[in-house]
């Protein structure tokens, strides 16, 4: 049984690695945001699995709950950010944008 959980955790970790690809490549902030969000949800699961592996689920459930409840706030903030600053693409080669952005 423990082995199963361990394997599950490892698989999830591998998926995180795949998500890393999206984070690196982008191409937009939104892609990265999504990828990070998915990593967040995966972390919740891994947390619980770790709890099971430690045999102390009761302790880890609190942390997972905190994640579950708070995970979306950053995304919400980012979303509202883009509502105001409409630019999703970031062009780093154009210095003019520095003054333009604010």
């Amino acid at each position, binding site marked *: 049984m423990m082995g199963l959980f361990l394997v599950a955790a490892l698989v999830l970790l591998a998926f995180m690695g795949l998500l890393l690809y999206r984070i690196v490549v982008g191409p937009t902030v939104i892609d990265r945001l999504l990828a990070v969000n998915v990593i967040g949800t995966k972390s919740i699961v891994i947390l619980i699995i770790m709890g099971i592996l430690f045999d102390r689920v009761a302790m880890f459930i609190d942390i997972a709950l905190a994640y579950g409840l708070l995970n979306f706030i950053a995304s919400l903030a980012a979303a*509202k950010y883009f509502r105001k600053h409409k630019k999703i693409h970031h062009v780093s080669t154009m210095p003019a944008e520095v003054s333009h952005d604010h």
Partner: protein
Amino acid sequence: MLIAIEVGLLILVPCVAFVALWLRDLMSAVIVLGAYSFLMCLVWTGMGAVDVAFTEAAVGAGVSTVFFIAVLFNTTRNITFNPLDVSSKLVALVACLGFGYVLLQGVSDLPDWGDPYSPVNAGVSTYYIENAYADTHVPNLVTTVLADYRSVDTMLETTVVLIALLGIFMILKKDRPAQSDSSDTQAHDSLIIRLSARFIAPFIQLFGLYVVAHGHHSPGGGFQGGVILGTGLILMAMSMGMASAKRLLSIPRMIILAAVGVLIYAGWGAVPLVYNGYFLDYSVWESVFGSMARSHSMLIVEIGVALTVMCGMYGIYMSLVSDGGMQEGL
């Protein structure tokens, strides 16, 4: 058994960190840092440091990214970068290599990780492990150490949160706020966000209260609970708009509450002085609470911490996001 997971994490963590540094777009970097924080939380958990993991969870998932975004909101996403500035980079490189070398030198003869006979585990920790419950009747050792044995450190750390709030508030505060129509941007907010935020906020607050109160038995405590409570308020402020958030908890009141939080802590600790005891010596309450004196006292000081941290988080967010004007934000 967990070693496989840890190895996987230790591969991922540096990768994410590197990506965060490599990205030229600060917004992306901030978001990637969120992933970093998730992974770190897992690392802490893997090491068995659940309280640290909890803090990381609350801070990393909850407020830190929001703070970053709030700062970017009022500044810029771009970093001005001079590719010709090689010499300072060289200096930095040398400094980093030197620092790394020194650190590694130091690591070479440290005791093994998890060695039960290492000084850390054989020293003060032994006392804590053996006597903490008997001393305080609190099952969570970490809470005991933080809120009782080394209580004054915690009090000062709470003060640090207060100072951060006051400092940011004072630096950013504008005396004459720009009078712009703040309601119109907020009015366009989608109904879904407003309703769901309104729905979920009470649960967050409830959970926060639970974390504060249950810190004796499970990971958590005043600090984590305070952050969660503060995040709930931030959520409300984001969805309902600054104006209504200010009606909820005005800025002066927020500062006062934050100070009162520390005052609760320190005041409770100062009561023994009247009986000629030591500061923060909760044992004077034994006449009232009996053997639970220390336990209950810890709860009270945790409430103080939570109050300060909640107001701190909320106030810092409000200051950052409105650039001190307290008029409009995200």
